[in-house]
């Protein structure tokens, strides 16, 4: 299995040269890199907006910028980070690169649709950036009506078009994954031999297919209402603004799981590799991904406990929201149990994975506060919510994304990155993150509402702490950008399997050839076949 030969002369990166060979490629690996460059750019645009916001919040007075500038900044930050970074991040980059390789296929089922999805994504990004450059949009990423439809004077329609188009790109990616996983698995690769990364991506794709179209129609209605005043969300014309919230959260709550599930898939790969252990409770983790995807659609109303939604609907949504805790807890406990009696290496991807488990645990536990009705009434729309979802999305999804990028970087580029710098920046991210967002839990319970550019002076101490942490976090994100680019040219050659990992993607050269494998691999073992089982031999179904 371990082939540490020199890289082959021809691989996907040097098989063809020139800008056209990239812009018209249908190779899933090249498309993954196109996505990587796009979303990295978007990440730093969104990050810049966050930096400016944290600067404004250093003082209680709104003294750095105009209120509308601040409102546009948090809107830009939300829209860019959610629709143009977090939703596509792991699926469109790592998923695109790895799903075919992990299942032993030569490409995704629809390579041209895959390229099309990147073009659609780019077009969507251009619309959104155009809206920002033209003067911005100030509705918040939630587009709540009737503010977005009848009151905002900013570029709502342009942004709505951007978000609408971005939805298609993610639908195409999800559809491609589903079909690929169903029809293109290598001989012998049964469902219960699949890596958990694949299960996570299958579950994610289900959410994308079922949820995104509902957001699309909600956004279309907002655009039409903004343009023609058709009245569907306008109380003055008989409409109900709260209906928009139902449509919006039907997608946007499951969207949180679009962001976190792939990251959980990555962590399952990292933990097993760096503990050199088979995953503990494979089928429990696999089914917990599906359970999260399905349950995720039953809980959207917990964003609406104080929206004038029916009290009874609130209770049912709270009840159902509680169930999401169970598959999440199952995952965390199984990962922890996997490390037990393992052979734990502290390579930088593992640091990210351990960081993920810790931060996700905190984010998940505070999610229970928000699902508990009476507490949500108090903390809804405060910094408590802001802290919670950053623990899930930044502490969770982004940590998983960075861990995955580091883990598969040798496979993607054929080069190793400087490990010392990687460990340092992982530590910076962890410390900076906690310093930024932990004070926001306290602020939230104290009652500081979100989306405030100025605030009562007694909140200043905690806000300054948060801004200080943000500066550390920013440095932690910039360092990898530098050394990863540096490693492209100066990094040591990686060899096909630098981590000693199992998984089909490690059985081919780094970087892989265009067709991924010399010959279609045949699978005879379960996933994560590190060592052999003794008395605890697990019987796999299928």
């Amino acid at each position: 299995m371990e082939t540490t030969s020199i890289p082959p002369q021809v691989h996907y990166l040097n098989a063809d040269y020139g800008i056209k060979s990239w812009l018209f490629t249908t190779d899933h690996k090249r498309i993954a890199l196109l996505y990587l460059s796009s979303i990295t750019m978007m990440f730093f645009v969104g990050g810049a907006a966050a930096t400016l916001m944290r600067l404004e919040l250093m003082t209680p007075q709104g003294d750095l910028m105009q209120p509308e500038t601040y409102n546009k900044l948090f809107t830009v930050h939300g829209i860019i980070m959610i629709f143009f970074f977090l939703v596509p991040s792991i699926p469109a980059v790592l998923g695109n690169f790895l799903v075919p390789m992990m299942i032993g296929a030569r490409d995704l089922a629809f390579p041209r649709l895959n390229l099309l999805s990147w073009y659609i994504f780019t077009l969507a990004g251009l619309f959104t950036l155009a809206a920002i450059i033209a003067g911005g949009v100030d509705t918040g990423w939630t587009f709540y009506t009737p503010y977005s439809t009848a009151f905002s004077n900013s570029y709502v329609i342009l942004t709505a078009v951007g978000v609408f188009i971005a939805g298609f790109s993610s639908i195409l990616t999800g559809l491609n994954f589903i079909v690929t996983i169903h029809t293109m698995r290598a001989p012998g690769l049964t469902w219960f031999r699949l890596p958990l990364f694949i299960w996570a991506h299958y579950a994610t794709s289900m959410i994308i297919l079922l949820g995104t179209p509902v957001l699309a129609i909600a956004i279309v209605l907002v655009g039409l209402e903004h343009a023609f005043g058709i009245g569907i969300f306008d109380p003055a014309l008989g409409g109900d603004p709260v209906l928009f919230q139902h449509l919006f959260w039907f997608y946007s709550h499951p969207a949180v799981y679009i962001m976190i599930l792939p990251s959980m898939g990555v962590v399952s790969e990292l933990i097993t590799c760096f503990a050199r252990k088979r995953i503990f409770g494979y089928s429990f983790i696999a089914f917990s991904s599906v359970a999260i995807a399905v349950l995720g659609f039953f809980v959207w109303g917990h964003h609406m406990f104080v929206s004038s939604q029916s009290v009874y609907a609130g209770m049912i949504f709270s009840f159902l929201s509680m169930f999401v805790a169970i598959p999440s807890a199952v995952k965390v406990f199984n990962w922890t149990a996997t490390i037990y009696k393992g052979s734990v290496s502290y390579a930088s991807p593992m640091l990210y994975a351990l960081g993920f488990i810790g931060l996700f645990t905190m984010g998940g536990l505070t999610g229970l506060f928000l699902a508990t009705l009476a507490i949500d009434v108090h903390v809804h729309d405060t910094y408590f919510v802001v802290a919670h979802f950053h623990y899930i999305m930044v502490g969770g999804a982004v940590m998983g994304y960075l861990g995955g990028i580091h883990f598969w970087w040798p496979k993607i580029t054929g080069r190793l990155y400087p490990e010392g710098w990687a460990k340092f920046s992982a530590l910076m991210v962890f410390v900076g993150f906690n310093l930024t967002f932990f004070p926001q839990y306290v602020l939230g319970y104290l009652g500081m509402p979100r989306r405030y550019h100025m605030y009562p002076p007694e909140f200043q101490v905690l806000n300054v702490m948060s801004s200080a942490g943000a500066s550390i976090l920013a440095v932690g994100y910039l360092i990898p950008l530098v050394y990863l680019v540096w490693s492209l040219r100066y990094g040591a050659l990686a060899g096909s399997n630098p981590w000693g990992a199992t998984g089909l993607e490690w059985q081919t050269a780094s970087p892989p050839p265009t067709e991924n494998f010399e010959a279609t691999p045949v699978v005879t073992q379960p996933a994560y076949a590190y060592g052999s089982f003794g008395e605890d031999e697990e019987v796999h179904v299928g």
Partner: protein
Amino acid sequence: MPTAHSGKTRRSTLAKSHSALAHHFDDLGQQYEASTLGMWAFLVTEIMFFGGLFLGYAVYRAAYLEGFIEGSQHLDAILGALMTAILLGSSLTMALSVHAAQVGHNKLLARFLLLTMLLGVAFLSIKGYEYWHKYHTHMVPGFAFHYDGLHPEIVRLFLSFYFIMTSMHALHMIIGLGLQAMLVMMAWRGRFSPEYHTPVEIIGLYWHFVDIVWIFLYPLLYLVG
């Protein structure tokens, strides 16, 4: 579900060197299975897309039934029935197109496709007439809307739903017509055979779905009350 659809072992007898076989598939059987599943997965997203509109409709219909009945009276139920019949007819000819492709009859396929397109255009023409009529009687919300009935606001809301739902449906039809035109070209060039006619089948699925949307739009918009 475990091993049911890996496809590779079951289809090995099918053509492996057909010109329509993409490089990353093993055989045409696998390619067909992938395309069909892909289209069905896409249709699931379409269900949810129209589902959002149906939800909005349901909420307001439940709240303002009388206004919706009044609004519906401004639509011609007989014209609607005619449109339904035309669209069902186009679904029939589409199904017959798939049949022609399955038996390898490219000419017949092209003819049935053209007939399908003709019926589609007839449907859109009637729809266009309806829109034109509504425009002239100032019943398009957002475009000099003027109405003096009992429930002006609700009728306006109803007509908003009418226009959004039918225009989304018409947009899907226009896309379908474009895809069918492409199929006609391919059929003229003799590209389909009993072994390979996947595009005809999956575009057929799409067309039937558009038909189904109308099956619901007809009673919900034209026959309220």
